[in-house]
């Protein structure tokens, strides 16, 4: 204890000078502004009136605030709610499914006494080195597996990430085999051992991989763009993307076509896009401060490979 305090005292002298510290703080502060201001701009634009945008452009200081964009979505947002629902389902179900499958596979590969471990590891590693790529995958999924316009197309193609299997396998390997043996001697089957002994010991690893998976599913627009031909099946990110050029997508499944035509004339197009952008990132950014500490922990534990 005494020695440690002494060491701390010594390192105190090793701090950078106050002046250097101030300069660095200013530089970092400026970088942080560059990082954050574009996001704030989008939020402000989403609350600006169309008239204000017409006059001042996308501005940090609009002449008039307005909730028109959000009201518009509430009134005519059938498609938005639908897409939100699709994304929610895909994220929740997809993550649970993906994490379960990945963890089980990683656990099996981590067991030195499993007879086919080497074979399956090779099969897995090969997929990291060589893959057919976009075209063969797309053709097989749409023509042979019937994933066209199916919600499963948003879940299955990205449910097994070989890299995550490798990371989790390393995590499971650090659990002493004796513990697993002990559970077995106590009469627990493989599934029980896995669920009651192995998983609780691997919470940090599972949390990190789980977070990555949740974010990946929520943020995915690519699978939606590839496999969804009808707008009504778009997840929220793909719907947002389709609005780059027009808000037309919203009309597709609006229950009241007449009302839509009426509203479309004075739709808050500019602020509307930004409002949807805000609604799409909001869940992630709200959760972000809470999950980032797990994320950092897992990252630094995992290092390059884990």
């Amino acid at each position, binding site marked *: 204890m005494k020695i440690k305090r002494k060491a701390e005292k010594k390192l105190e002298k090793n701090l950078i000078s106050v002046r250097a510290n101030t300069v660095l703080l200013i530089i970092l502060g400026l970088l942080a502004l560059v990082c954050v201001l574009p996001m704030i701009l989008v939020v402000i634009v989403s609350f600006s009136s169309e008239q204000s945008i017409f006059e001042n452009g996308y501005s940090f200081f609009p002449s008039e605030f307005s909730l028109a964009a959000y009201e518009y979505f509430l009134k005519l947002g059938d498609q938005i709610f639908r897409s939100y629902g699709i994304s929610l389902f895909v994220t929740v179900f997809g993550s649970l499914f993906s994490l379960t499958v990945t963890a089980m596979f990683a656990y099996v590969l981590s067991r030195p006494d499993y007879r086919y471990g080497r074979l399956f590891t090779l099969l897995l590693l090969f997929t990291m080195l060589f893959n*057919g790529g976009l075209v063969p995958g797309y053709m097989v999924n749409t023509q042979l597996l019937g994933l066209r316009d199916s919600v499963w197309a948003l879940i299955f193609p990205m449910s097994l990430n070989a890299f995550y299997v490798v990371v989790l396998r390393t995590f499971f390997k650090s659990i002493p085999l004796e513990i697993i043996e002990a559970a077995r001697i106590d009469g627990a089957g493989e599934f029980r051992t896995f669920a009651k002994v192995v998983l609780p010991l691997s919470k940090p690893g599972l949390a990190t991989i789980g977070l990555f998976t949740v974010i990946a599913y929520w943020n995915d627009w690519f699978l939606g763009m590839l496999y969804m031909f009808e707008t009504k099946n778009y997840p929220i990110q793909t719907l947002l993307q389709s609005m780059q050029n027009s808000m037309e997508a919203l009309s597709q499944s609006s229950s009241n076509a007449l009302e839509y035509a009426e509203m479309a004339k004075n739709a808050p197009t500019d602020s509307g896009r930004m409002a949807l952008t805000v609604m799409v990132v909001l869940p992630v950014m709200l959760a972000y401060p809470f999950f980032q500490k797990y994320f950092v922990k897992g990252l630094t534990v995992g290092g390059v*490979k884990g």
Partner: protein
Amino acid sequence: MKTGSKTPTAGARKKTRWFYFRKNLPLTVMALPALILMVLFKYLPLSGIILAFKRYNIRDGIFGSAWNGFKNFEYLFRTKDAWIITRNTILYNFAFIVLDLIFAVTLAIILNELRQKRAAKVFQTIFMAPYFMSWVVVSFIAYSLLSVDDGFINRALGLEVTWYSQQAAWPFILIIFQIWKTIGYSTVMYLGAIVGISDDYYEAALMDGATKWQQIRYITLPALRGMMIILTILAIGRIFYADFGLFYQLPRNSGPLFPVTNVIDTYVFRALKENGNIGMAAAANLYQSLVGFILVVTSNFAVRKIDKDSALF
């Protein structure tokens, strides 16, 4: 489990494949869902590679369409596009690798040296936020800055630049946004490594009267060297794969920008979904897969020589 299979009893000779299969069955069942996914979504698609050597038409399907040898490749490499997409993919990735390395290491060192640890945490959190946004979202953020009529940049500077058709600007725009989005993530990785360096080194250096610069130069940087080399080599192994979202979403699929924004991944996608030229798309795809394979294996081999534990295999 081990002891049972090792004792040489009379029954041991009867321990056939079937015996082992049954003994390992519970674990095999656990692995089964992943194996099925792997077969369906990784191995089955490999059969689709033959499309690169076919003249695809919908009626005859993947396997029924007529063969046309290397025609698709001939067409592909006769176009100017083959050269442009290869050049763009490699040059952009190269720029990303170099800049990411420089900025991430610098930022990590700065954050580590800050006198206020709490402030360092806050900055780290802010820098990493963009990493969790999709490219679609980022494309709208960029649009709020770059739009011709309403964009913040044009309005603030009184310009009327049509950013979405200015070829010369896009190499910079793409690089800025790529760094903007990913730098926080890389910084945290390096910061983790710096925090792991033992204080003893710095104490010893301090006693010898080393300045802060000397400590960074002779302790911190050498300690990070291994990680820098390995991450860089791994990135070089993936230099033939571009981040599709960056190159497709950020320029909003703008035609006039293709010469500076088209990369292999976007080319393949457009050939497949927008032009319906399946054969050509498959050919470009296979070109990427093969060169990518060689690069990944080579880079992994190089990593293995430096640090066995960091290699994939």
